[in-house]
Every structure is written in C-alpha cells, then in structure tokens.
C-alpha cells in the first residue's frame, strides 16, 4: 500500500530532507519534508505519515517543542530525532519529549535504512496486535 506520505522530515537543511528522500524512495517510501516546526504542524502530510524524522535545532520553535507538539497530535506515531549535536543529554531530553529513537548526523544510507525499517516494522507489529 502506498500512501501519500510515509516518512515526514522536519529539517531546516534542505540537503538532509533530499538525502533522506533519495535513500527511502527506492524502498517504496514516500517522503515529505518541512523546514521548521510551524510549517510541519500545518503540513497535511503529518496527519497521514507513519514516521517523523525531526531535527533538534530548528529556526523558530525548537525541535523538542516540535516533537512534543507532534506527539500531542499523534500519540502513537514514531518520531526519530536526528541531530548534528549528538550528546547523551540531548538524547535524554529528546526521549523525554517523546522521541522514539535517536539518530546522530551524519549517517550513511544503510544506517538510515536500518533504523527506518526497524521502527516501521515495530509500529506495524504493534498495529497488527491492536487489530481485532
């Protein structure tokens, strides 16, 4: 099943969104992106996507605020925090805000793919279980 959007990227660096799309599209995953928290929350793809990749340092509203807002909108949605400043403190804060996983930048295609597949598989499994 192909949806309008599978993976939603929130990152102010256009190249990051492009790179993620480059790797994930051949896997049959649709990628949409937004450059900041406000436009992400207003983006129609957010309601449909199965996974969010969110940067921590965003212009305007911070990445952590974005994670909290998305978590509030869609409680079960997996959110992976991607950051160029990967510290344990940042990771703790991100998980406290509701992030599912933490992926330090820079990553290569296989690291990204592995993580995305794992997260999607576990959500799919959870959804399967929830089905009557």
């Amino acid at each position: 099943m192909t949806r309008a959007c599978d993976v939603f990227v929130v990152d102010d660096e256009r190249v990051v969104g492009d790179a993620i799309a480059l790797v994930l599209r051949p896997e049959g995953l649709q990628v949409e992106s937004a450059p900041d928290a406000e436009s992400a929350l207003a983006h129609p793809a957010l309601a449909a996507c199965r996974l969010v990749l969110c940067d921590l340092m965003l212009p305007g509203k911070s990445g952590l605020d974005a994670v909290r807002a998305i978590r509030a909108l869609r409680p079960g949605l997996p959110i992976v925090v991607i950051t160029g400043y990967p510290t344990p403190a940042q990771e703790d804060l991100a998980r406290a805000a509701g992030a599912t996983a933490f992926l330090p930048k820079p990553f290569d295609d296989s690291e990204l793919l592995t993580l995305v597949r794992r997260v999607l598989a576990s959500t799919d499994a959870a959804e399967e279980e929830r089905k009557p």
Partner: protein
Amino acid sequence: MKPGIGTLAILGVAVVTAAVIGVMSGIILRAHQGALVDQLKRSADQLSETIASSTYHDMLENRRDAVHREIVTIGHQQGIEKVRLFNATGTVMFSSDEAEIGRAVDKNAEACYACHAAGRPLQRLPIHARARIYRAADGHRVLGMIRPIHNERSCWSAGCHAHTREESVLGVLDVNLSMAAADRQIAHDQRQLVLLAVLAIAASSVLLWGLSRQLILRPVAALIASTRRVAQGDLSTSVPATARHELGDLARAFNDMTRRLNEAQRQLAQADKLASVGRLAAGVAHEINNPLTGVLTYASYLERRAAADPETQADLGVIVRETKRCREIVRGLLDFARQTPPKRQPTDLNEVVRRAAAVVANQLALAHVGIGLELERELAPVPADANQIQQVMVNLLLNAADAIAGGETPTGGSIRVRSSSVDVPPRGNVTIRAAACPKGCDLLDPSVRLAGVPTIRVLRRAGEREVLVHLDPVYGRANHRAAEPCEEGVIASYLCPVCRTRLEAAERRCAECGAPLFGVQVARLGVVEWCSRKGCQGTRWEAVEARGPQPYAQLEVEDDGRGITEEEMDRLFEPFFTTKGTRGTGLGLAVTWGIVEGHGGSITVESQPGRGSRFVVRLPFRVPETAPEAADPGQAPAPGRVPMPDARGGAAPRPAPAGDAGGRA
C-alpha cells in the same frame, strides 16, 4: 629627587652618632677637667702644708725676715702665682707680692667667705671648701687655696707672746696656683675629641653607604626593575636571590610569585584554549554535520547502486570512508568538549564492556583484530556513569586496534579485555589530594603535577642549602622532584615554604631507619609522613593504612600491537597529542583520563615497544570522599578535567608505573 633609603639611613646614623659622641665627649671632658682641678687643689694644699711646716719654727721664734724670704722664694717658683699670709684681722703680713704687705683684706670677700659666713669663723674645712678659682687680670684662671693657721700651745707659750691663749685662728695662708697649663691641656683634649667624633661620623657614614649600596640598594633596584618588567607582562623574569637576609627572602618570594603567576597564566591559556575548542566544537559539530549528512548519504547511496561499475563504486567508497573520518573527528571534539562530572549509578561494568565491544566489533573485524573478553562473574556493581565508562572502553579498544592495525603491514592481532575486582593497598595507590602545614598553609601545588595530579611542595633544608621539593602525591610512591639533588643518606629538615614552620613532629621516627619523620596534614585523613633521610623510602599514613586495602573494579585492555615508546609515554594523556597522524584528534586518551579521574579512579599503562601495551583502569567500589560528585544534569557542556602539562615545560603527566605501549586516539 626624593632622598633614597641610603641617604636617609646615612643622615639618621650621622645625627645619632654625633649626638652620642657629643654627649660622651661632654661627660669625658667634664670628668677630665674635674680630675685636673682636683689634682691642682691637692697640689695647692700640699704646697700650703709645706709652707706652713717650713715656716713653723721661724714663726715660733718670730723670725719675720726668714718667713718673708721663704714665702717670696716659694711664691716665685714656676706655676705659683702668689703666696701670702694674713693675720687674724685680715691684714697681709707676708706676701710674694711685696706691694700687698700691710693691706687689709675684707673678711666678706670671696676668699674669706667660706669660713666667715654667718659672722663666725669655722675651724675645720675640707679641701674643696678652701679652694676657689678666679681669673687673673690677664684673663688666665688661678686656683686659690687658703689654710687657716690654728692656735696651739707652742704658739701662745712662745717667748714672743705675740698670741694669747684665747685666739683660735692666728692667721691664714693663701696659696695661688696658675691654671694656665691645665687649661691648655683641657683645650687640647677638647680639640682631639671633636676631631675623633668627626672621624667616627665620617667613617660610619662611609661604611653605611657601602653596606646599604651592597645589601639594600642593589637588590632593591633589581627587584624594582623586575617588578616593572612583570608589570609590563614579562613573567619569565627573575631576580638574583643569593642573599641570606630578608631581601634575599623577598627576592625568593618574588621569584616564587612570578613563577606561579607564569604557571597560572600558562594554565589559564591552556584552559582557555580547551574552552574555546569546546565552544568551537559544539558550534562546528552542528553546522558541519548537516552537509556531512548530505555527502555521506548521497555517496553511500550511490556506492550501493554502483555495483555494476566496480571502479566508480571504489571511488565512491573513498568518499564514504573519508566522510566517516570527518564524522569521527567531529565526534572526538564533541566528546572532549562535553566532559562533565559523572552521573553515578550502580553499574555492571561487564555489561559496559560488552556494549563497548559491540560498538567497535565491526571496526575490529575489518582490521582483523580479534577480541577476547575475560569477565569476572558476579562482579559487584560500581557507582559509575555507564555512558562515560563505555566511552573509556571504546577509546581504549579503538586505540588497541589502531596499535595493532596501524603498522605498515597489518597482520592482525588480538585484544584481551579482563574485568576483575581487586583489593588495592593504600601504598602506591591512594592519592593525596589535600595537604597543609601545621599552621594551615596550603601545600598542594597545582603548577607542578605528576600524572596530572598536583604535587605537594615543601622546603628541604640540608646544611646551608634550602631547596623546594615537590613530593609525589601518590602515597607510598617516591617519585619526588627537587630543584637540585641531595646527597643520599643526608637527614634534612623540612619546612613549610610559606610560613617556614618545621614539618617534623617531635618523637616521630622512621620505622625503617630511625630518622625523624616529617608530615603534612590531610583534611579528615590525618597526617601523611615521610622519612627525612634522603634515599629512605619510609612513609606512613596512619588514617589510610587503618582503613586497609580498598576494593576496586579493574578493567584491563591488553593488545599485542606496536607498543608505546618512552617519548610517547610522556605525552600520552596530553590533549591534542596523537601518534596516528591525520587519523587521530589527540583527544581520546585525554577524555579517557578525565573520565577516570572524575570517577576517583586511576588509569595506568605498561608497554613494551613492539610487543604490546596494557591499560589498566581502576574504579572504586565506594565513592571516594573527595571525588567530584555529579553536577547538575542541565549543566551546559564544558571542557572537562584534563591533565595539565607539568611545570617543566610541556612534558605530559606520566602514568605510573611507566613502561611503554600502542597508539592512541
């Protein structure tokens, strides 16, 4: 120009000398003058006695001519001014000055007053009361001496019947001596004394000038010049401090101060450099990781898709590899910039080791490095920050892998990791982290470190020589440093370099050689003592010995790589030191050292170049009292504790026991 210390001192001394010599001269002159006058009075009295007795018989027999002759003869001798004889009514009966004969003398006149005061003659007067000094017509002084001639039996019974029995005094003999010679002597003595006083003042001034120039002015001028240089920012300056007096102490204190300032400045610069690196790293990491994400993702994606074109795939592989190298460099900088006090939790170190091994497993496999874990079963949990200790283990494992694979012809090798619990005796292991003299002066010297730990400074006095000694802060290890060596076997005395209090305690003797022990106070942990005999290793720390061996968890990482040379060993834990050329940041072991120190643990290295190295990390099962506790988790990333190069100029902290071993991050 303001008068200098020397001029003021000379003036002061000249005034005091002049006053003292003046008063002394006055007293001496007065005494001398008194003695001369007394002598003259006795001479005059003797002379009057002689005249009285020699004219006695002539008087009895009433031979007036003979008496007159005798008086004239004596009266004209040298130094005798005049001799005369009055009768009881004051008429001059005989005189060497013949013009006077027959004249009457007023009984109230000065010469007569002594006896005739109150209107009645006194009969016996002492010599001083009978003498008088007056000035002659030509101005010179004259001493007059009167002698009453008393009535006696032979006088009133003599045939001449000149005197009756009732008269008490028959007449008065008056002898006058010239004082000219005595006065000349007094004036001469006075001149001589003044001359001597002037000479004494001049000599003391010259001496003082010379002394002040040599002892005060020159050292002070040197101090002023150095102080100005320091004020202008030149902290490498020092002044000659050879003098033993207070100015020598001042010069030594000055040199000590500038040395410490210099050291502090150097450390500040180093800390500043590290802090800048930290801020820079944090900023750069974020900025550079975004473009690196693009490069790495695109390149790895293309590499995977280029399976059909091996040449392109290999080229893309280079991009991927080099981009990953950039990633490691940035992460190293971040780790270094981010060292924080550990957040301690009961931690299973075996689990930490397994996780670290898993993290590096791919890299080890690629480098054909095998890894063997020998983990102690049921190793008790250690209060530690699991993330930090994992970082330590990852760093040590990657270092070991590099030491094996980094050579020109990598042939593979193996790493063994062991965990164990060990009981570590205090000797050779416990670090002295506080030290004070009995009066409370801080003796810890952060400017001179051994293996990154501040040493303890004391002053050693052997004979005439005083030398600053930096004691090894590890109890039981005797890697002390001194500015100059001391002969073996010499028993020196040890002082606080600040207040100079003796550090030897009464009755405390070395158990090994019997020499006195000297000690420093450690907060809450009593006194650490060392033997004062050079070469004797005797030492005692009763409070710590009483606690006995302490349990530590020990992690060993041993490789069979290229080893560490003696030279590398010296700088091993220094930030930015690397043996890996462009492949390392020089921060891995600095970070490792900082983490282990932060846990109150220790890290030591043994190595044989060409054979391999063994890193041993020990972490206490009990949180040491003095170890820094976990700070506020919300704290901003800060550059952590790093080993500072010691005062001898950049040599790195040397871990003990120092041997030699592999590469480092």
